[in-house]
């Protein structure tokens, strides 16, 4: 067998394939094979994952709907939360008082009491809406306080480390060990005179209990955020990009602002989202004990508390505020865990 034959036999393939295919490929042809993935920033990527999470999205819609009702409806609602009507006490939902029935008989239109009325004849729906508004305000306000103080405190403690960190963290430990309910009670007693004498109508309307709740949130509730941010900063500090920035000659302020805070965003969002429901819960709980808003301002907690006296006859007076708290807290919690899943880089594909 000749050398040529041997080659052909060992590779029968070469006769069947189009020789044109064995021409060199151009660079463009090669480049076509390489695709670079679509550009996505971290935020957009997280949002995309959040949108895919149906439970979180439904929760978000529920929260937005509740917020819309709480802040928009009172502007055009025919009843106010203070207006009493002795003739319309403890009406059931969609029930009309004798006076209102007479009005209807005269051909005038009367807006129905969607959730009935309370013992003083006030429209219950608007009171629940106002209560919800208070709850949402408390939640958002406390989250804001927590974000601002927590980030500042945590990042300073984490960045400077050493003795500064030690002292700052011991302060956090002390704050952790303070009983918050006790402080609310003491504070509300202490500032009662100041609040009632206050010229600001807002403070006077909120009442000593509410103001002290906000103060307590400001004083005590940022600690877990501060701890988490500090922990995050400590781990970021070890990253080489921080060292690189130092080698370039960047100032501490720039390093914190440009490198550390942006990399804490996920932790901050997650904790803030978890903070809102716990603040709402605390406020409802304190109002239920009579420490929250002052009358006649309603809160979901105080509404529930008032409803206890007529629980057997008018159970819906408890059900509506309770349901509202339940919906708000559940939605915020589900949204919070959805955010955690979306922002936690460990779960990234």
């Amino acid at each position, binding site marked *: 067998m000749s050398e040529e034959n041997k080659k052909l036999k060992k590779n029968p393939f070469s006769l069947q394939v189009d020789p044109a295919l064995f021409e060199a490929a151009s660079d463009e042809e090669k480049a076509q094979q390489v695709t670079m993935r679509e550009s996505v920033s971290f935020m957009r990527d997280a949002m995309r994952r959040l949108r895919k999470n149906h439970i979180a999205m439904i929760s978000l819609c529920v929260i937005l709907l509740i917020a819309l009702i709480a802040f928009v409806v009172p502007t055009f609602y025919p009843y106010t939360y203070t207006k009493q009507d002795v003739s319309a006490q403890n009406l059931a939902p969609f029930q009309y008082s004798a006076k209102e029935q007479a009005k209807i008989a005269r051909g005038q239109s009367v807006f129905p009491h969607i959730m009935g009325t309370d013992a003083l004849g006030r429209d219950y729906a608007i009171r629940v809406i106002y209560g919800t508004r208070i709850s949402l305000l408390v939640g958002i306000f406390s989250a804001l306080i927590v974000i601002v103080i927590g980030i500042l405190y945590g990042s300073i403690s984490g960045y400077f480390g050493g003795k500064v960190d030690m002292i700052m963290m011991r302060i956090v430990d002390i704050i952790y060990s303070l009983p918050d309910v006790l402080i609310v009670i003491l504070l509300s007693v202490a500032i009662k005179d100041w609040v009632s004498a206050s010229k600001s109508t807002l403070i006077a309307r909120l009442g000593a209990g509410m103001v002290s709740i906000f103060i307590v949130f400001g004083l005590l509730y940022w600690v877990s955020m501060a701890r988490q941010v500090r922990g995050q900063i400590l781990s970021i500090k070890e*990253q080489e*990009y921080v060292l690189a920035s130092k080698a370039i000659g960047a100032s501490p302020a720039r390093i914190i602002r440009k490198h550390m805070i942006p990399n804490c965003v996920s932790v901050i969002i997650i904790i803030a989202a978890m903070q809102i429901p716990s603040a709402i819960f605390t406020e409802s709980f304190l109002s239920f004990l009579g420490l929250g808003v002052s009358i006649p301002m309603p809160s979901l907690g105080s509404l529930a508390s008032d409803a206890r006296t007529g629980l057997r006859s008018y159970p819906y007076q408890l059900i509506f505020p309770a349901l509202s708290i339940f919906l708000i807290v559940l939605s915020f919690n589900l949204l919070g865990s959805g955010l955690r899943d979306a922002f936690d880089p460990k779960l990234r594909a």
Partner: protein
Amino acid sequence: MSETASPFTPNPEYLVQVNHLKQYFPISTGFLKTTMLKAVDDVSFDIRRGETLGLVGESGCGKTTVGRSMLQLYKPTAGEIWFDGKKIDSKESLREFRRRAQMVFQDPYSSLNPRMTVADIVAEPIDVHKLCAGKKEREERVRHLMKLVGLNTEHATRYAHEFSGGQRQRIGIARALASKPEFIVCDEPVSALDVSIQAQVINMLEDLQRQLGLTYLFIAHDISVVKHISNRIAVMYLGHMMELASANELTRHPLHPYTISLMSAVPVPDPQESRKQKRIVLEGDVPSPLKTPSGCPFRTRCSRATKACAESCPAMREAAPGHFVACHNV
């Protein structure tokens, strides 16, 4: 340590001079008890303009600390750094130095901020030192730098995590070049990369050195890479410098027993050579830097150790022209 404390005079031939650098870190070893970790213990060397000095050693030998102390990322415990005839000691000299000396890091993943775009990462030195007048000039400069390191300029708005390891290292190099430095400390720039990508980055570093007249301190644990890129090589062990010579001289005629065994331990990518290779397998482990042996730090693993080695730490001396070694028995 043979020199007395006479004032140091800079030599204009050298861009960087390190004089008796010491870097100790206090480590708490119990309640209210601290021990000094001597990461770098009395190291002196010079780097010529346009030269690449390789720094090799095993993990924990202090090679990374040398690079970071030189750039004043740690405050040196003792010793002086001279750059271009000026001592780095004041705030002004440091600010100037930070622009003219830069660093490339080992880990292409943790050395780039994942929340910043490539353009912002590359432009960070420009922003910090306010080197560009306007937005347009900055953009132009970023585009130029990206081209310089072989990155697609269309990718300027992308985030670092979208790139592969080799491309990330290119971004890191572009950042180091942004302030037009003369001296770059390359701290294991290729050891996290795959072999085929490693060669790309090494070639690029060589090209940039030629184009821009850069001076490198190249830190790595892989001797074959250091040998390839460096003009001279320094070998470190437990915070001390053991040997310093030209790259060819050091790999051909290593004098220090540590260098010799280090060379013989490097696996050769050639099966027949590998079978022939005579390996000197060092016994035991590197001692803890918290409890360094008396005298020569290498004596606990050295086959040629004598009584003198335990008594005093050998000083660097010139065994052959340009070939320095710190060993009593050479």
